[in-house]
């Protein structure tokens, strides 16, 4: 109550732009700026008067600090990663990511050898890229098809349930995808899909017969595809909805069929945003840990066959970090984590910029 009375008395005494502790930024005394000056001067005057000036300023700075914590988190993560990976960086340098050692006993290439402190991240980089590429190959056509169906072809009563189902797909934790993959997907691949692939496409050299477990890049690619589908599809839908209806109507008025309208009126205009959505899905696939760890086979090797076991950057960190033997091992793992961090930041920033360019600043979906 006292606060209201004080402010009311301040209003009754009249605002005076010239006198009083006016703290409005950019207050001008020129006739043109007088109205604006009076507006901000009034606000500044009112905000600086009364019992609440200190409380207001304190609250303002508290909120600023909370918001700056986001920057603080990024700085924190970056600094901790850099500090902890210093040892490996100074020992191996950039060759950490593409050097190759040879096992003295078997004369086979050996990349990751904590016992002898030989560390090369090449198989993990290869594994991450290969599984993500496979995931994109499977997921992008399906996601765009789903988005097209949901925005253009879906009957109205089906739209909400389908959108809800897609949202549920995005909300399922990674470890449950991994659980399902280990017990349902991998046996399915092992019994039915992989033999078929070997029989029909084995001549390409990409599907060798030497891994009967069903784990490997194909399993990782399939489960990653299921995981990144909802992201790509929901962002594509958002981008497609941002295309103005006039474009659609114009193409239809020229006599196009529905698919031609979608292709020429919507997809062509939303191209950039769809690319952004795909890149965002790629970013998610690059960093996905638990489901990939459970199905990729965890063997640090590089092989031409897609059915072979492998390892990804996130999977080796998940497997070995808690029990890393020695500072060099830990540092090498942290350097892999740093590389993952930088790559996903760049990929996500690029994707968000592309999507923003099409939707022009509408609040992005937090997925």
């Amino acid at each position, binding site marked *: 109550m006292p*606060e*209201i009375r004080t*402010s*009311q008395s301040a*209003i009754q005494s009249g605002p005076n732009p010239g006198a009083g502790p006016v703290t409005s930024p950019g207050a001008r005394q020129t006739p043109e700026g007088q109205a604006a000056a009076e507006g901000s001067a009034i606000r500044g005057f009112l905000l600086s008067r*009364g019992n*609440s000036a200190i409380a*207001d300023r304190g*609250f*303002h700075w*508290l*909120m*600023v600090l*909370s*918001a700056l*914590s*986001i920057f603080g*988190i*990024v700085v*924190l*993560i970056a600094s*901790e*990663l850099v500090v*902890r990976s210093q040892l490996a960086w100074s020992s191996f340098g950039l060759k950490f990511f593409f050097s190759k050692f040879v096992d003295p006993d078997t004369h086979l290439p050996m990349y990751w050898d904590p016992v002898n402190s030989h560390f090369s991240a090449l198989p993990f980089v290869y594994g991450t890229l290969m599984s993500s590429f496979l995931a994109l190959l499977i997921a992008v056509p*399906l996601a*765009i*098809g*789903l988005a*097209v*169906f949901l925005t253009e*072809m879906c009957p109205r009563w089906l739209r909400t349930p389908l959108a*809800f*189902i897609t949202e*549920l*797909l995005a*909300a399922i*934790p*990674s*470890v*449950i995808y991994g*659980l399902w993959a280990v*017990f*349902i997907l991998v046996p399915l691949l092992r019994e039915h899909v992989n033999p078929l692939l070997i029989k029909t496409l084995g001549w390409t050299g990409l599907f060798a017969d030497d891994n009967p477990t069903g784990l490997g890049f194909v399993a990782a690619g399939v489960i990653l595809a299921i995981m990144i*589908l909802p992201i790509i599809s929901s962002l594509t839908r958002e981008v497609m909805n941002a295309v103005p209806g006039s474009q659609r109507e114009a193409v239809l008025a020229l006599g196009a*069929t529905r*698919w*031609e309208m*979608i292709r020429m009126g919507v997809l062509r205009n939303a191209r950039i945003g769809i690319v952004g959505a795909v890149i965002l899905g790629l*970013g998610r696939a690059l*960093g996905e*840990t*638990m489901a990939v760890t459970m199905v990729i086979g965890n063997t640090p090797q590089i092989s031409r066959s897609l059915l072979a076991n492998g390892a990804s950057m996130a999977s080796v960190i998940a497997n070995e*970090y*808690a029990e890393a033997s020695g500072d060099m091992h830990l540092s090498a793992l942290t350097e892999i*984590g740093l590389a993952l961090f930088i790559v*996903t*930041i760049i990929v*996500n920033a690029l994707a968000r910029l592309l999507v923003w360019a099409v939707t022009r600043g509408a609040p*992005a979906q*937090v997925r």
Partner: protein
Amino acid sequence: MRAKLRTANRWRARMRTGTDGLATGLAILSTVLVVAPLVAIFAYLIYKGAASLNWAFFTQGEKPEGELGGGMANAILGSGITLAVASLIGVPIGIGGGIFLAEFGRGTKLANAIRFTADVLNGVPSIVMGIAIYSLIVYQQKHFSAFAGGVALGIMMIPTVTRTTEEMLLMVPHSVREAALALGVPNWRSVLSITVKTASPGIITGCMLAFARVAGETAPLLFTALGNSNWSANLNEPIAALPLQIYKYAISPYDDQHRLAWAGALVLILLIVAAVSLVRFVASRGVLKGAS
């Protein structure tokens, strides 16, 4: 000549209609292929997990390997404690950030930069957050702890809560704010008691969404909270968590532990489905019932 044109046009029209039908068919096929894994996952979760959801599951802790029975009660307790620490860190800072973006910094370059960074931070792999917290807390303290796990999950909540709070606050009409300021309510009071309170259903659902998201996160807990086979409520010791336990049981060689993993996964997914459905329900009924 005209006949040739007519047949050519007819052929072309048929091609275009055919392509349209093909495209429709492909779109429907891709929808089915997307919905099928989800239905399969849910079906298997219910089929394999529902039978194991008995009283023992929710009250007993982990049994030694090879012994049958037992439950995940210690994991559920551990998850609850870790998530409580995470919410204590994530929710206030996140809401504060959202208030800044919507009230004080609207339109400024700083706010745009923060919003962009929050979106990018949402895409950073959770295991990288785990490494950072390991380096920050676990390495200094020389032991794993539930506190470190809670902090890792908490800083994962901050960007999500910030963005959803901002979106909800942006929906509060200016008339509400102006009415409060016109009555002489100080700015901080107006923001807290009037604007935030008006948007509070939406803000709470945003926090629930972030909560549900970090409830399923395993990777940051792998080397901060580490997991614990015994009952523990101590913040300074390793602690079990539901997703960690599911991971451990899923890759173990024992069938009984596999059964428990399915049951745990069912509990986790029910929690998340409840949160997502509640969010949708509140959003559809209208966030701002009180504002005009």
